[in-house]
């Protein structure tokens, strides 16, 4: 129970925030609200009014028959009332249309404003957020979650309000007409509500089962497509088809059950409602014969009955979807509430075209507060030096770079660029001095030229080609169907990992930064090309500081300073020769690579 009230409190808070963020839309909401009230009242009035017309017509017709004349509707004998009914109906439809259209743009605008907040937030979140959250999770917040919310707000809110109004109003009217028949109706209504509840529970279970089976199929399909060459080369096609068949059969089984449950709920409830109608019709017939009921009232009663039974199931369904919409909104607010990176200093120091002196002074750091990875690290890179960082996977090589670029902030100690504490610069200014190539190559959907010019959008085609030539990727680009204007797809299956690496190198060369960082930048390129790139880079980097992480030691033997890392700390530093002479960890590593 305590849990439930806590939940309610949280939901109330989310609703408040949502309302707050749509403040400028209040007039629109007020109009919608007023419109809903009028709409509900009018749609309750219409059936009574039409019942009166039917009764009136009936009386006029009886009179006409008694007088022995033919009857036709004139202004006096019902025409005026029918016109009024028409006006009532047109007004109802008009209000309905008004609400619908107002809500459509309202909910989309709300989700647009939240999306815009997210797009701003993404750039302000610390990198640790991205480390700790799955890609798909962040993605689905901005897309699915918001779409769900917008859909629920758009139809859900309206349906909920009008349904409640209609149901309550209809039942009141029904009681007013005939309390006995109303009681019969209420009995069946309760039955259908109970039915809805049990169905919903079952449906949920089947939906979960279906989801599990689909997850199972997904992993099987992924595995089969990725490993298809192996399947073929070992002639395992038939076995593989057979096991795929088993899984698809399981999915079909689960889908059948889940789909049936989802689709059966409406007919089932309709069946109950209709059974109720049968009983009511028989009772009403009896009352009609006994003249305790008029034909018009009978008709009106049935209209209310129809009006009341449909929205009821709808309202309960909408309540569920609104709840999940709230949950979606809550997840989005959680993301928007995440702690942001620290603000840049107000009066920052400025380092333009840095000399390239970098110093780590007693730096300590941990990705989580309570676990320090790096303790008291110090080293110094002089202008124009090549600094190599080596060590096994997880030794903290990339962490060092992350700190240098201020993707993360140090726990204690300081990092200096040209003698300035990097914390005293703006991040933009700091990063402007660096060019970075990562092992994990990132290209976006766009042409090759656009990708190379990412850091310098105003670059000319000549500059782009020049950079590509330096990165030894010009020839490859020319063999592509549209050359530099070839569009890279998002999964970029049209180019290999090695070629992607070369493109990202070209991108950095074009930027012409003061300091270069290569984080396993050529790991997927063969040794000969690697050396060629190395030579090209040597020209680019002449008199500029560079940081190189490499697992192939042959590329870094000429470094001015080699940092050997282990468990987050620098355990050895020096030149290749010094370190070999020392016969320590570096010598071990080196000898294990060259038999």
């Amino acid at each position, binding site marked *: 129970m305590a849990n439930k009230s806590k939940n309610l409190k949280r939901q109330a808070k989310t609703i408040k925030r949502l309302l707050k963020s749509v403040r400028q839309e209040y007039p629109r909401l007020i109009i919608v609200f007023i419109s809903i009230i009028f709409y509900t009242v009018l749609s309750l009035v219409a059936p009574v009014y039409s019942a009166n017309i039917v009764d009136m*017509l009936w009386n006029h017709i009886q009179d006409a028959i008694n007088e022995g004349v033919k009857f036709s509707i004139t202004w006096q004998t019902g025409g005026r009332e029918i016109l009024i009914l028409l006006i009532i109906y047109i007004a109802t439809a008009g209000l309905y249309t008004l609400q619908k259209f107002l809500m459509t743009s309202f909910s989309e605008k709300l989700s647009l404003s939240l999306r815009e907040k997210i797009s701003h937030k*993404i750039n302000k979140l610390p990198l640790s957020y991205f480390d700790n959250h799955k890609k798909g999770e962040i993605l689905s917040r901005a897309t699915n979650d918001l779409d769900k919310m917008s859909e629920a707000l758009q139809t859900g809110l309206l349906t909920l309000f009008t349904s409640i109004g209609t149901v309550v109003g209809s039942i009141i009217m029904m009681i007013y007409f005939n309390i006995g028949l109303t009681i019969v109706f209420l009995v069946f209504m309760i039955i259908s509500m109970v039915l809805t509840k049990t169905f919903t529970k079952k449906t949920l279970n089947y939906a979960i089962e279906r989801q599990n089976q689909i997850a199972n199929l997904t992993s099987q399909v992924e595995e089969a497509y990725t490993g298809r060459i192996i399947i073929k080369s070992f002639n395992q096609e038939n076995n593989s088809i057979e096991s795929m068949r088993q899984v698809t059969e399981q999915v079909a089984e689960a*889908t059948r059950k889940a789909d049936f449950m989802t689709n059966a709920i409406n007919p089932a409830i309709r069946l109950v409602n209709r059974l109720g109608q049968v009983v009511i*019709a028989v009772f009403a017939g009896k009352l*009609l*014969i006994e003249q305790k009921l008029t034909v018009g009232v009978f008709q009106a009663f049935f209209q209310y009955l129809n009006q009341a039974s449909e929205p009821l199931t709808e309202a309960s369904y909408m309540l569920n979807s609104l709840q999940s919409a709230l949950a979606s909104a809550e997840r989005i607010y959680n993301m928007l509430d995440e702690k942001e990176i620290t603000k840049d200093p107000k009066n920052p120091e400025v380092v333009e075209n840095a000399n390239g002196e970098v110093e780590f002074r007693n730096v300590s750091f941990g990705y989580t507060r309570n676990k320090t990875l790096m303790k008291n690290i110090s080293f110094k890179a002089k202008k124009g030096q090549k600094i190599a960082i080596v060590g096994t996977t997880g030794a903290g090589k990339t962490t060092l770079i992350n700190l240098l670029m201020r993707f993360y902030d140090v726990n204690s100690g300081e990092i200096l660029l040209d003698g300035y504490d990097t914390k005293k610069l703006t991040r933009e200014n700091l990063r402007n001095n660096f060019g970075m190539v990562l092992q994990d190559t990132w290209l976006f959907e766009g042409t090759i030229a656009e990708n190379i010019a990412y850091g310098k959008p105003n670059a000319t085609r000549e500059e782009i080609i020049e950079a590509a030539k330096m990165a030894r990727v010009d020839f490859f680009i020319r063999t592509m169907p549209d050359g530099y204007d070839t569009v890279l797809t998002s999964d970029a299956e049209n180019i290999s990992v090695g070629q992607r690496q070369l493109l990202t190198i070209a991108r950095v060369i074009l930027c012409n930064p003061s300091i270069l960082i290569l984080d396993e930048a050529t790991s997927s390129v063969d040794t000969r090309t690697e050396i060629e790139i190395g030579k090209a880079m040597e020209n680019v980097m002449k008199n500029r500081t560079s940081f190189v992480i490499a697992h192939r030691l042959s590329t870094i*033997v*000429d470094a001015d300073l080699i940092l050997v890392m282990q468990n987050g700390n620098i355990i050895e530093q020096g030149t290749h020769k010094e370190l070999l002479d020392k016969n320590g960890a570096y010598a071990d590593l080196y000898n*294990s690579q060259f038999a």
Partner: protein
Amino acid sequence: MKIIFKYVKRYKGLCIFTLLFIVFDVVGALLIPTITSDMINIGVGSKNLDYIYQKGILMLVVTIMSGLGALLGSYLCSKLSSNIGRDMRNDIYKKSLDFSYTNFKQFGTASMITRTLNDVNVVQQTFISCVQMVIPVPIMFVSGIAMAFSINHQMGLLLVFVTVIIIIAAIFITRKATKIFEKLQRFLDKMNVILRENITGVRVIRAFNKEEYEEERLKKSFSEYADSAIKANGLFAGLDSLAFFAINLCIVAILWFGGNQIGVGNMEIGDITALTEYAILILFYVIMAQMVIILLPRARICLKRINEVLDTESEIKDGKDAKNIKRRKNPIVIKFDKMTFKFDDADENTLENISFTCKRGKTTAIIGSTGSGKSTIAKLIMRLHDVSSGSISLNGQDIRNMSQKSLRDHISYVPQQAWLFSGTIRDNLRYGNENATDEEMMHALDIAQAGFVKDLEDGLDTHVAQGGTNFSGGQKQRLSIARALIKKAELYIFDDSFSALDFKTDAALRKALEKELTTSAVLIIAQRISTIVNADQIVVLNDGEIVGVGTHQELMKNCKIYQEIAKSQLKGGKNGK
């Protein structure tokens, strides 16, 4: 659309029964108001209580019949659609296995997965909606109008008139909707792509100080999406309102004209209720169908994508003469004869004029830089590609003249990226030979330097996670080598399969291989010179052409490219600068 009928045809009985139950449901829904009006007209008019009870029982029967019809109908429909989905998936998968490397790459792994999973799902769901919401419409339409006519001609005409107007409006809206929804889908995809790029590229974006640019890019795609979503939703709202309006108008018209018809004695008062219900039912069904039809373009795109897969003919076909391949006779296992290969969409040949042989009992190595076409050679031998000109023969027979199965029976392959299937180590090794005994498996593991399996708690039964992620790169490579060794083949291809091994293991493994594979040919594709120094024959590839063939010593003397490769890998400290 044809394709869906192809699948539906397989379940004729199921279809007929589904349709039958839908008819039950619809007719029942229409009969109830008719009976109600009878009850009032005759029963109340003649004050006959028994008649009312009789009609009440009839109503009960009809209600139950129609309700059961609806329930059974939706059960059969779910069954039908899930069967169709299953069949489609099976067919897509079967087809995918026939594909050549290029065929498959055309679609891409990610897209193939989407096609097999999501696209089929969309088709399946749309199929259900169509059967439940669209197919009843004509039935409802015809029988509803017929019943209205049986009450009164004028009223029948009125209903026809209103319905036709609604249908015309619906067609008009659908036309517009198709465009809007296609646009919406495109914007949604774009939004997803840009968001994904922003999340995966967060480091690069920040390193290049492109935060603001990316924020603008995101915002633009968001507002594009919002604009077209508003349009799309507006369309739905418009349709909804229109229907609402039409129903109301229709009710008033029934009152007016119906009143007059009753006045002249052509109709009873109770008929008004019945007619009103017919009108509401018909219009309700038309609108529901409309909602489904608006979503059809999306399903059509999915169907088209599925069809693309099923319609693609594999570019590689089995030769006619498949069985007469002699084993272990010919001293030359594989022979490349002036072979040239070019990808269909490429301007230049990937491999040009390649000629060399792999001899029984000998090791042939291929070395070259990234993109020199080394791996393509392995794929050509396995017939994952077909040569463009020249030929490749196995035991003297052109590989295009044998079945792919018997060709691959003779070859055992270790891929560049070690790939293990989820299951156990034993399951994976059985890929090589289904009947392998534990001893054979352990032997193969020993040769592959994968003795670590013995130290595992569950040994051969150790669980392998999807993609083999619970093993290190080196372990995965050794396991996939063991898997290949269990298969008795005449040619063993190692496609850069030693890259994740340290030098010691590499050397030990090669020594063990030499001892084991005395009667087969071995082809090693490598980047590391140390892996291949002892090969009987080394083929040096550069930009798709052979620039040298010989032993290590010979090539060091006369092949410039080989020398360069060697130099780049020697100990930099001593021999470099």
